[in-house]
């Protein structure tokens, strides 16, 4: 079973393990625009780039491999010109948004395991099948670099691809807080809310993320 984490000093809470396992199941399955094999390749390129390694394999276009590697290792370096360049090279907005979802969550899982002293989780075997093609037809370009449904907001950032938006929320709750818990400034689990926000802010500072 994925995320057995047998090397850990003590068990970790069930909802966090369940969230990680759920995401690994999703990673292996066909998405809206990428096959399961391609999704795993995106994650693999991002993981390798974080270790300073470049992968050479042909499950992805060179453009997709580059975007996954850049977003995996140097997210703060991404500029609108990069997104335009990748789009002009054939990476359509829905494929780019799904790539963001896959790379961002697998980067997150890797960091959680690294923090807890576990080895990186091996990637799952891909599930056969074709991408669903499901995208939000009412998404529009507004103030950000990708189309979104409704206003320009971090909670709708991946809304062009509903399955990726749902996956983001499914990860966000157990790793940090649900949207309902976020409304509570005194929410406490192992850390109180202020301690959580100190960790969030420092992580964002090291990642040079202004938002």
């Amino acid at each position, binding site marked *: 079973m994925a995320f057995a984490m047998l090397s850990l000093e003590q068990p970790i809470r069930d909802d966090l393990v369940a969230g990680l396992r759920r995401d690994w199941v999703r990673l292996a399955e066909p998405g809206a625009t990428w096959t399961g094999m391609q999704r795993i390749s995106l994650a693999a390129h991002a993981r390798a780039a974080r270790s300073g390694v470049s992968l050479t394999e042909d499950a992805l276009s060179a453009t997709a491999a580059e975007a996954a590697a850049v977003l995996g290792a140097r997210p703060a370096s991404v500029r609108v010109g990069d*997104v335009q360049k990748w789009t002009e090279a054939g990476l359509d907005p829905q494929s780019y948004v799904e790539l963001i979802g896959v790379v961002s969550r697998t980067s997150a899982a890797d*960091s959680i395991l690294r923090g807890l002293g576990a080895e990186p989780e091996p990637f799952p075997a891909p599930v056969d099948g074709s991408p669903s093609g499901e995208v939000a037809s009412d998404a529009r370009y507004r103030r950000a670099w990708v189309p979104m449904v409704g206003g320009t907001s*971090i909670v709708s950032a991946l809304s062009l691809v509903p399955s990726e938006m749902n996956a983001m929320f499914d990860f966000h709750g157990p790793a940090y807080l649900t949207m309902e818990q976020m409304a509570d400034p005194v929410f406490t689990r*192992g850390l109180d809310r*202020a301690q959580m926000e*100190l*960790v969030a802010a420092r*992580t964002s500072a090291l990642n040079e993320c202004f938002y």
Partner: protein
Amino acid sequence: MVSHLEMLSSSVHALGHTVDLLAVTDRNVDPRLHGGIELLNFVDAVLGGSASEISVARSALRSALGWEATVDAAGVIGNFEMMNRIADATGMPVGKGRRRTSADMIDRLGLARFDHVAED
């Protein structure tokens, strides 16, 4: 970062604690939050340290706040590894209203240098 510095300020106020926000960008500053130094050391190790440095930081955090808190800290780091990538890759702007209300904090912490998607 701006969003979570605001949330840090709000939660500290609601909890009756104190914090020096400058500690988020300047490691010479004590955050003045219980376990704050151990939490910051853990974040720094996970994002940029070796396995042994992470182990040392994790042990110190566990001694200071316990295992459950250490797991929470790892989860929050992971979540913001995700959210930072989403914000940066989608060009998520910080709105003009938030820039105004957070202007003093942005200036004091020198955050403008991280602003890759400033709107006109």
